């Protein structure tokens, strides 16, 4: 049985709960993208890791206080966020303080503060286990499926959705109000100070926003996977754009999309796929895990195919450059052969250029086809001839080569056996303007150090 009907069948069971789960996860992911972008740019993505650990005592503390306030009947969401904010501030101030002491390194300070706070949180959790109903694994791994059932008062609005809305709203408000300050304190803190922007306080604000966001997300995706949402979408967005506002918008979009796709795949694709592989009986997997996987896939795709920074486009650029070099080598060899008036058969010529420049045979052949296509070389009768435009190109390369050899000999004092190789590499990167400068510097020589004529500029 084909997999697609199965997937569609699975998707057709989509219900209100699924919608709420996706909304909840998407809100969390979009909220994470905002502090995530700034943390990434400050090369402090791991600070998020730390904050997510440090938030534990805050969460437990908030649960304790709300249990005490409401006599064990429930927990207060606002209190939870306040608890997170407080631990965020405490952790950031502690790190700042440890760094000022200068007795241990900055990264050590991070490790010490965050693990200690996490340990404190675990202790509190065990100590007050009878007073609060808090499952440690739920904090670490999250549980969308349960989170969606808990609703706000008598309404049908899940508390997780509310939490996502609040944290996203808070992050957006801070972003819009403090965009200048966040940008300046992230890019150039000393200059920010000179503009009256208290950079260290803005950085503290960022840490607080990150901790609130992480706590807002803990029951949705868990405090471990929230890290993925803080780091992966911003990293993907950075590959796709060079503008900060666009980077933030893109990472929000990528986060949201990962949530939707992640949930859809979790319920519809994994079961049928495993079924096909002979493992039956698994209907759905964790949405939060799938979300992170989808985001990570997006990152891999961006790393491969991003327009400027992607591996694929770099490969293409590299290939183009090597092809250009092969073309220029061919033109230069043909120009030199014309000088000595020795026509060479096409296949011999390609072998000659390939061996002298150390390029693979096929690339030189491809370069020759390009030259013929552009009308720089005429390839009839099994012999290559330069056309007028090809001669011009070859002359430029040879001029660059011989000027550079002269420069190496006269100005750098290199030995004769060192001239040719250096010039063969440099000749492809010398612009007309640089050639003029070289000629002037060398007082317009008409011969290179080996006595060959340096052709004039054309």
């Amino acid at each position, binding site marked *: 049985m084909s997999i697609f009907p199965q997937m569609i069948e699975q998707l057709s069971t989509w219900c209100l709960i699924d919608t709420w789960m996706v909304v909840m996860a998407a809100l969390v992911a979009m909220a994470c993208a905002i502090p995530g972008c700034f943390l990434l740019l400050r090369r402090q993505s791991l600070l998020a890791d730390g904050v997510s650990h440090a938030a534990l005592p805050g969460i437990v503390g908030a649960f304790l206080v709300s249990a005490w306030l409401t006599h064990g009947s429930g927990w207060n969401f606002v209190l939870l966020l306040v608890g997170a904010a407080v631990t965020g501030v405490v952790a950031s101030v502690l790190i700042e303080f440890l760094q000022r002491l200068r007795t241990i390194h900055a990264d050590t300070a991070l490790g010490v503060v965050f693990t200690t706070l996490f340990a404190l949180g675990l202790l509190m959790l065990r100590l007050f286990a009878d007073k609060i109903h808090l499952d440690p694994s739920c904090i670490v791994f999250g549980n969308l499926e349960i989170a969606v059932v808990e609703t706000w008062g008598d309404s049908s609005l899940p508390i997780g959705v509310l939490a996502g809305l609040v944290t996203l709203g808070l992050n957006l408000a801070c972003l819009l109000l403090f965009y200048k300050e966040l940008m300046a304190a992230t890019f*150039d803190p000393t200059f920010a100070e000179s503009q009256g*922007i208290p950079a260290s306080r803005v950085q503290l604000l960022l840490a607080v926003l990150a901790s609130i966001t992480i706590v807002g997300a803990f029951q949705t995706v868990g405090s471990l996977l929230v890290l993925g949402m803080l780091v992966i979408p911003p990293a993907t967005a950075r590959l796709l754009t060079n503008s900060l506002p666009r980077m933030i918008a893109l990472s929000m979009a990528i986060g949201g999309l990962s949530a939707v796709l992640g949930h859809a795949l979790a319920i519809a694709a994994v079961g049928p796929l495993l079924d096909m592989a002979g493992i039956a009986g698994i209907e759905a997997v964790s949405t939060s895990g799938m979300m992170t996987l989808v985001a990570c896939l997006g990152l891999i795709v961006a790393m491969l195919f991003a327009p400027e920074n992607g591996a694929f486009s770099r490969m293409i650029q590299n290939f183009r450059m090597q092809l250009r070099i092969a073309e220029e080598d061919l033109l230069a060899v043909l120009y030199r052969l014309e000088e000595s008036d020795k026509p060479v058969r096409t296949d011999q010529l390609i072998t000659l250029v390939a061996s002298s420049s150390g390029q693979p045979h096929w690339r030189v052949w491809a370069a020759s086809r390009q030259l013929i296509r552009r009308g720089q070389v005429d390839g009839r009768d099994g012999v290559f001839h330069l056309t007028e435009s090809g001669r011009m190109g070859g002359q430029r390369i040879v001029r660059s080569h011989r000027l550079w050899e002269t420069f190496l000999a006269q100005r750098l004092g290199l030995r004769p056996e060192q001239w040719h190789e250096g010039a063969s590499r440099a000749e492809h990167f010398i612009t007309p303007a640089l050639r003029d400068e070289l000629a002037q510097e060398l007082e317009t020589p008409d011969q290179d150090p080996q006595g060959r004529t340096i052709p004039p500029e054309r």
Partner: protein
Amino acid sequence: MIEPMVSSESPLVIHDMTVAYGRKPVLWNIDYVAPARKLIAIVGPNGAGKSTLLKAALGMIPRQSGSAVFYGKPYAAIRPKVAYVPQRSSVDWDFPASALDVAVMGWYGRLGWFRPVNRAARTAALAALEQVGLGDVAQRQIGQLSGGQQQRVFLARALAQDADLYLMDEPFAAVDAATEQSIVSMLQLLRDRGKTTIVVHHDLQTVAEYFDELLLLNLRLVAAGAVSEVMTPQNLKATYGGQLSILDAVGQRMTFGPSGSK
């Protein structure tokens, strides 16, 4: 020629300023009155505290004692009139920002809290970029600019601020000769418009050519005044010579305690 020095008119008066990192003093009892409308170089060996002098005067590094007064006022009261150009290497040029985005930061102080970058700020930043010859790369990401262009982006940001006093930390570091020339002519233009510029510089050979005033620094102020008067063999020897090792040794002991090195 003797000019009457009215302190409220001097762009920068530093009085008995001592700066320490931890307990180790890096600048000892600096007294300096900067003359207005001049191009001033701060010169000294590596580790002499040149950058520290600027940052401490601006309050970016806490002062252990002493004061710095700009046009007769504390820095916080006169911030927009003082433009600071940090070292180029102090920022991450991979940051997703264009040259214009960076130049516009020169207006951040004037805009103040809660106000987004507006058209006036962008116009001023673009004009400043054109002034340093970067009008055509205003939209380019800063990481794609050459080192000299990046340095000029920083200058444009300071120009956009339209200050009266410019404090520049090594604007000539790792720039090509052409950029150096264009920066120098820009500094001279600023002086001709009545601005004062204090530049941390590391090349003694060009001081006389580029600057009017010289401040020789090595942990303490060795000499300050017109370049022709200050650049004497004795002063240079006092700045670059060895007798400062005593000052440094005492500083070391203040850091590590009496048992500290040597």
